């Protein structure tokens, strides 16, 4: 703070006004012009919440950027030494200004702490970025999730528009496949979802650790062998999305992706019914639907994966804080 004259207080007030005006303009422009297009989009309720969180973080960050640039710009244009003018002030007065430093530390501390609290709440709240995922999610969406999951496990689950849809995601080197227990338990390489529907992803692996990352759905869940990682989302409109593995899992990890689609409920029902019929012969050879499967770790010999019962874990019995 090289300035040390009576104009300094006046300068700060002017900086404050400039900062406030520009910040409001930038924030408003961002909110209405950029915000709706921020990642990860609005294909699901989870994605919408993620987008909202990112937008709020940006709304808080932009005034900080504007503040730094405004102060920097003002100091460059108003506080530099002028030809034939007085010598610049050196010494301690040029290095520090207790009042400005105090305000800067206090305001940035409050901002960071507030964002930390906001981020934590956003993480664990309904449709948050992380709380609804894992073997024991801290929240469940409204609706009879537990009953649907139990019916899926028992092979009695059905689906019609408006109902919750369980989908099992199976990771293996190097492709995700998807089982639909409400349509006879068929397994396919394609992930098709109905719009305006609550989806329960049950994510597991047959070999190493993978990570199911459906970016535009706002869903990311580890695929661990022997573990049923649960992730919820609620689809909104129709659209395409990509699934990628986000856990380094071997030579073809980079190629472990596929495209998915959220389609209308009637289109989904038509697709699922026709796929169920087309794959019926092979579905009859698949193991009974289970949360996890236990393949032989020694490779192909005897490597069929029929056993979901060796793992005592049952997600239906333990997950979901709202059950109690």
């Amino acid at each position, binding site marked *: 703070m090289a300035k040390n004259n009576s104009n300094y207080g006046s300068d700060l007030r002017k900086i404050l006004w400039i900062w406030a005006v520009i910040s409001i303009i930038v924030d408003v422009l961002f909110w209405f012009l950029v915000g709706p297009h921020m990642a990860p989009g609005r294909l699901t309720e989870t994605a919408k919440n993620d987008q909202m969180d990112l937008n709020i973080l940006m709304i808080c960050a932009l005034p900080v950027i504007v503040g730094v640039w405004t102060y920097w710009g003002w100091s460059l244009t108003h506080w530099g030494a002028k030809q034939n003018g007085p010598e610049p002030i050196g010494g301690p007065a040029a290095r520090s200004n207790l009042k400005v430093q105090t305000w800067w530390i206090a305001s940035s501390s409050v901002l960071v702490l507030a964002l930390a609290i906001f981020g934590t709440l956003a993480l664990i709240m309904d449709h948050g970025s992380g709380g609804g995922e894992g073997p024991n999610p801290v929240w469940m969406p409204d609706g009879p999730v537990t009953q649907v999951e139990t019916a899926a496990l028992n092979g009695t689950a059905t689906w019609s528009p408006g109902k919750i849809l369980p989908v099992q995601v199976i990771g293996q080197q190097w492709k995700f496949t998807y089982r639909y227990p409400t349509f006879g338990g068929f397994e396919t390489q394609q992930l098709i979802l109905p719009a305006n529907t609550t989806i329960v992803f049950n994510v597991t692996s047959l*070999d190493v650790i993978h990570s199911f990352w459906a970016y535009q759905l706002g869903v990311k869940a580890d695929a661990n062998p022997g573990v049923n990682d649960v992730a919820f989302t609620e689809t909104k409109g129709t659209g395409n999305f990509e699934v990628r593995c986000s856990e380094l899992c071997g030579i*073809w990890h980079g190629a472990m992706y596929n495209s998915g689609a959220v389609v209308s409920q009637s289109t989904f029902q038509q697709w699922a019914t026709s796929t169920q019929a087309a794959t019926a*012969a092979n579905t009859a*050879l698949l193991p009974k639907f289970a949360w996890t499967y236990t393949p032989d*770790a020694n*490779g*192909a010999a005897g*490597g*069929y994966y029929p056993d979901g019962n060796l793992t005592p874990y049952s997600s239906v019995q333990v997950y979901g804080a709202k059950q109690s």
Partner: protein
Amino acid sequence: MSKGGRLVVSLGLFLVAAALVVWAVAVYLTPGTPGGELNFTNTQAAGQPVNLTVQTVGSIGFGPHPTWVSYMTKDPASGQWVQDNTWVLPAHTEVHMTIYQFDSGSPLRNQVWGQVEGTQGNSATINGKTVSVVNSNVGAGVGHTFAIPSLNLIVPLPGVTGNNICGAGPCLANKWPHNTVSFSFKTPGAGNYNWQCFVPCGLGYLFGNGGGMSTENYMGGFLDVVAR
């Protein structure tokens, strides 16, 4: 040290650092696996189907890893079997693929790979019989699969029965027992598409997916699809 000397030393060190960066980038971009590619773009008239013939062997029998399982491809120019499993193919062209499967089999880890998918008619011809599903839990099971994941193409290759299995590639169809699997698919637009086996046949490695399963040109490679 004189000003000129310092300048020379600085320049020299800069050039050494720049050379190291260039070398590191070149090493990173250079494939570290053996083998090469075979060009199928000139083997037929434009618009005509491409014939691609490959075989799967339980042991390649030569090279740095002679015991590893591998695919081999019939060179369209020489007619020789070579371990060059990246294929340059014309875009939007029908490929007639024939696979001679010389290896034994077992139940699939995931029977979903027993479903033929992504080929024309979602079916394949196995020893003259058209099938859409192979039950890996009966008979000799499935030895390998041919899959192009990004095209959702998967074809199971049934295992060979008996003890008289070809021990080293290339295997001759008139000498060793095998299954002949044929199917057709259409190449997509220009680009690189990986192909791989989904049977964890890298025995002796964790989950069977090491060794030949984790080394390009053994149980995986690329379709280098080019516009023509």
